[in-house]
């Protein structure tokens, strides 16, 4: 590991190695993805099924809109959302990086 890769270079270990809550958000699991979900915003009925069944909190309402979108920082590309979408508005496509 090169030094610049270690985000915890300046870390001080607490007594008992106690950790602060909600801190895994720094880990952007979107880099795992091979397929990415895309949404047909006209077909989306904002039912929220994709959100309900997303293990990675990556399918969320888009601010100020009546459709859902994906937080690609965390989406691992599992494809559950495509399966559970009642209007087939979601499609998994091979990601070009």
């Amino acid at each position, binding site marked *: 590991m090169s030094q610049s890769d270690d985000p915890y270079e300046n870390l001080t270990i607490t007594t008992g190695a106690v950790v602060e809550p*909600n*801190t*895994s958000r720094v880990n952007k699991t979107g880099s795992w993805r091979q397929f990415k979900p895309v949404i047909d915003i006209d077909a989306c009925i904002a039912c929220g099924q994709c959100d309900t069944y997303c293990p990675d909190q990556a399918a969320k309402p888009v*601010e100020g809109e009546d459709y859902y979108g994906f937080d690609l920082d965390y989406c691992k590309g599992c494809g559950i959302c495509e*399966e559970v979408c009642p209007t087939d508005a979601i499609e998994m496509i091979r990601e070009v990086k």
Partner: protein
Amino acid sequence: MSSDRQDQDFTDEVEHGEELWNPGHRACAGCGPALAMKYITEAAGPNTIVTNATGCMEVVSTPFPESSWGTSYIHNIFENAASVAAGVEAAYQSFDRRDPDHLDVSDEDDLNIIAIGGDGATADIGFRALSGMMERGHDVTYVMYDNEAYMNTGVQRSSQTPLGASTTTSPAGTESIGNDTNKKDMASIAADHGVEYVATASISNPHDFKQKVEKALEIDGPKFLHVYSPCPVGWSYESSKTVELAELAVETGLFPVFEMENGEITSVNKISDRKPVREWLETQGRFKHLFDGEEGEETIEALQEWIDGRAEDLGLDA
């Protein structure tokens, strides 16, 4: 769909709510147990202390110095999540009696103490701790997430592995049809401890599961929940099928969904036209060998018989 879909990116525009099960966790894509963690935290809310057994959900959520948990959380070892929770509960009983101002939250009655373990951590190695916690009557809600094998160590057989499943310690072979036992009935075992509220649920029906978590948390004393949580890696299926396979397990009766109160079955999610278990088995690589010959057929029949017997006992069929 427009041609620019490769560029579609709502990352900076989506609205995250209060998430007590945070993204960034290292669970595999399509992880069933990760959904269970999400539903547990949504149902319980922030006034919660989670004790967690060693296992997938612990490992994926707490690589030092990161945590996916927004609630108070403690992991100790593999086989003691129930007794760590019992100790937490005893501490708060003491604080509540001796030092009522100790807790900033309104009072001890509103505090949720939830122990979480996988099927191995709960039904096998942590069985003593679970039994003791339930028998003594601690105010703890225990949730067993069941992915039917020791997934964290690489898919070894547990007492929740279904008949016929090939795992790394119950491999199918010329002399083996895979795992040679049926799933241990943890709900009945919990109920036989005098646990007031016992329920099973599937991640395919989060509304039902969350209601059961909420109901459990309202009850004083020990509660036991068994939540079915498929594992794409250990079961060998496409990660997108997690919810579908969980639902199919319910629809075939392999995993019946019901509630027990004070030892009696009080509600059963009835199934009309229960599907043959074969339909569920066909979806997973771990059962592939069952479709290769006569012995496999016999195993499928044996599993179907076991399911039919349980369905009759539970009154599962609508």
